């Protein structure tokens, strides 16, 4: 008989990993099942990484309440779990007079939601904050910020893992049934898992997963968002630059966001698409992104672009359906008890994630006595970043471990030691994309031109991986088809 878990969480995005980490404070047998080869492989990797202050959403909605509540955790979680958090502030910029009224409405909504520090500023004040940004007025939001959505998810997952949560990757759930008051979860990989509780935080696939057992009619309408990523640029902008949200309420508009690494993101677009997996970029949208960004920041035209990518929002409504927004579905199913569905967790889901986790813990706590796990360790340490150390520390590090003296990635100055540490993390890494997210190799301007060969060598020398065992992402994405000549 298989082991019976108290709770199984489906989906290792930022929401699933937040829930897993918060539940690991208690004496529970926990497991996370993930379809892809790594955490943060869906919505959690393809977004702007913005920590929203909470003025966008309808007062009283779950989106608004959980956003504001979630925001309060970031400082503490960033420190405890050692992931980047920066409250660099945001400007929502009006280009024409008519838009100023829209700014006032946003401020009013923000006040109702309990957001602090919002301020209406004029063109001169915009220039004082951001000399290169063009606008006639703006709403200044001092407590908006940025994080790395995947480093945050990785930190949560590593900490959950350290506190006893099991993780299973590349296991796509394809059947759920009830067997003697237990959930039996079957995967495409022919695995079976049993649990008393089931939490569905499967993101884009959450409606599909819920329908495997629940009788609801929830449906996800995938809405793609494309991005441009620039090389690191100094002194262009320091804050988040947003337009007014679109009138149809679908999105927050194409914005310009500095990343925690010093690059700049332009995006996202909003396109309803047919497939949950179609993260392709398209010419029209790519051109549109640049055009719109130039309206607020003309100099972005000259920026060196290094990558395009796209993420997908799990929308619960379709434009033209008469609905302009919908709230998160976070509920225990009315028929299938002990099954909690989290559906339609789109923006501001990243910011709301800590509060969503709280909410889910409370839902579980209502039905069972949760006993604190006295072994719980709230801290997690990120691997050291050589490039950020002082000269003296760099010298000392190399002396203690010469692997710090071997620079593998030139653009980002990543050393062999950092690649090894990224690979050796408690969750493991199964792909080059996973390595890249953890230690920034291949993430710079040459996009792997210098380091790809070196990484292949390290994987071979340190871990005995054959060429066929090196994947970009999942097991269907091999980099190589064996050797050119047999040895």
């Amino acid at each position, binding site marked *: 008989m298989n082991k019976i878990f108290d709770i199984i969480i489906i989906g290792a995005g930022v929401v699933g990993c937040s829930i897993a980490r918060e539940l690991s404070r208690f004496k529970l047998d926990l497991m996370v099942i993930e379809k892809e080869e790594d955490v943060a492989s869906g919505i959690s990797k393809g977004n702007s990484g913005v920590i929203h202050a909470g003025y966008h959403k309808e007062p009283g909605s779950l989106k608004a309440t959980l956003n504001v509540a979630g925001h309060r955790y970031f400082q503490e979680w960033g420190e405890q779990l050692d992931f980047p958090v920066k409250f660099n502030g945001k400007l929502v910029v009006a280009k024409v007079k008519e838009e100023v009224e829209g700014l006032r409405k946003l401020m009013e909504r923000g006040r109702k939601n309990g957001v602090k520090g919002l301020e209406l500023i004029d063109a001169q004040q915009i220039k004082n904050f951001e000399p290169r940004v063009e606008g006639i007025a703006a709403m200044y939001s001092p407590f908006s910020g940025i994080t790395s959505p995947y480093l945050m998810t990785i930190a949560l997952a590593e900490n959950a893992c350290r506190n006893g949560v099991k993780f299973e990757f590349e296991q796509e759930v394809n059947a759920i049934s009830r067997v003697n008051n237990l959930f039996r979860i079957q995967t495409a990989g022919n695995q079976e898992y049993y649990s008393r509780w089931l939490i569905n935080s499967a993101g884009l696939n959450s409606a599909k997963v819920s329908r495997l057992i629940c009788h609801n009619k929830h449906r996800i309408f995938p809405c793609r968002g494309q991005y441009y*990523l620039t090389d690191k640029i100094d002194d262009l902008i320091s804050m988040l630059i947003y337009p007014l949200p679109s009138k149809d309420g679908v999105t927050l508009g194409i914005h310009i966001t500095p990343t925690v690494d010093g690059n700049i993101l332009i995006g996202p677009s909003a396109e309803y698409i047919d497939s949950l*997996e179609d*993260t*392709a*970029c*398209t*010419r029209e949208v*790519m051109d549109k992104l640049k055009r719109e960004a130039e309206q607020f920041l003309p100099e972005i035209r000259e920026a*060196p*672009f*290094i*990558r*395009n*990518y796209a993420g997908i929002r799990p929308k619960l409504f379709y434009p033209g359906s008469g609905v302009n927004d919908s709230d998160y579905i976070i509920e225990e199913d009315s028929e299938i008890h002990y099954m909690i569905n989290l559906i339609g967790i789109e923006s501001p889901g990243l910011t709301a994630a800590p509060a969503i986790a709280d909410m889910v813990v409370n839902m579980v706590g209502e039905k069972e006595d949760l006993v604190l796990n006295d072994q719980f360790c709230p801290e997690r340490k990120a691997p050291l970043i050589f*490039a950020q150390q002082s*000269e*003296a520390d*760099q*010298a000392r590090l*190399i*002396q203690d471990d*010469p*692997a*710090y*003296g*071997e*620079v593998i990635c*030139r*653009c980002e*100055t990543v*050393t062999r030691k950092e690649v090894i540490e990224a690979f050796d993390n408690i969750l493991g890494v199964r792909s080059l994309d996973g390595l890249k997210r953890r230690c920034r190799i291949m993430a710079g*301007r*040459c*996009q*792997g*031109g*210098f380091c*790809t*060969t070196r990484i*292949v*060598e390290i994987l071979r020398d340190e871990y005995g991986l054959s*060429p066929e065992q090196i*994947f*970009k*992402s*999942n097991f*269907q*994405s*091999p*980099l*190589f*088809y*064996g*050797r*050119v*000549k047999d*040895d």
Partner: protein
Amino acid sequence: MIEKDIDIAVIGAGPAGMAAAISAREKGVKDIILLERNPFLGGILIQCIHDGFGLHLFDQNLTGPEYAEELIQHLIKAKVPFLTEAMVIDINAQKEIRVVSRQGLLKLKAKAIVLAMGCRERTRGALEIPGTRPAGIFTAGVAQSLVNLQNLKIGKEVVILGSGDVGLIMARRLKIEGLKVLRVIEKLPYCSGLVRNRVQCLRDYDIPLHLSSTVIDIHGKDRLEALTAAQLNEKGEILYDTAEVIPCDTLLLSVGLIPENELSRKAEVRLDWRTLGAEVDDYVETNTPGIFSCGNVLHIHDVADYASQEGFLAGERAACRVRENQGKVLRFPVNASKEIKYVVPQLIREDCRETELKFRVTEPFENIRIIVKNGGETLFRKKFLKIMPSEMNMVKISSDKPLDKVYVELEKTEIA
């Protein structure tokens, strides 16, 4: 941490850097170090197992590794100290260098520096090609290193975008190794690689070259599954009704090389937007006194031999700089007509009476005359039946007077 004063530091041990170190040493400078980030000397030469190297410098037809070996033997004979697996991570205008290696952190204060870091390849991101982001997309140089140095089979059915020399060479290389090389796609109406590569790599191996075409979409979620290619009109606009889906699992990009000048910027070296390399005078000295630049970090060369020749000059001049500090020197700009993409050097010193200009044209020209003038004086005048952007032109000029008004231009000639 080791801190040390040194006469000359050469950054990068490729064809240019090795040459610079050799010539500086032969000019009598002993306190010199050649810094190389790879575990071996030679740079990109080592992965270039095809021939065609050394024709100008050694009067022999060598492979990349053989060419490198010639220079390495020189280095050893000349007793040039070098450090491999050593990455320069910082440098400044005071000529202080921070080097990371397994031996530790090394801080050097140099009297002269030769920048010879080479170039990197343009990536898919810089091209802004729409589509998905699957495995199976490599730049041609990375593919060359994976195949030739790591013995890795990078795919089965290959399309190459861009007709740069590395792409043409890899087309042949992969075909020889039994991969299907479906076609080379070039957005320009002419091949951007050297004629000899077009003939020896594509024609001789029956690999089709599609001109005025490009890749407009990339398909496949995990591994590349197909590309959409389309033709371009004379204005370079995509003709969507010519779109064609090409099933393949590998895409190589050979779409341009970019001088790798991140370190140069840190040393406050002024760059030329046309070459993306440093702005130099006839000594290949940059605006930061005592910092010289040569090889592909200065501008992209067609063949390694020319990069080495530039390296010899840089090393020689760096050696002079160690011995004598120059006073204030006037430098005159070199100008050119709009058909000239760039000229190196960009500046000529007031005491210079003889130098070599290197330049490229912006597009192919036929029945043309290249003219170099210095004010009213014509220094060079020669007719060409055809002149291609892929070929670097080198013209020696000299005068009794200061070269203060050098101007390079093209003139149409009568059809012969």
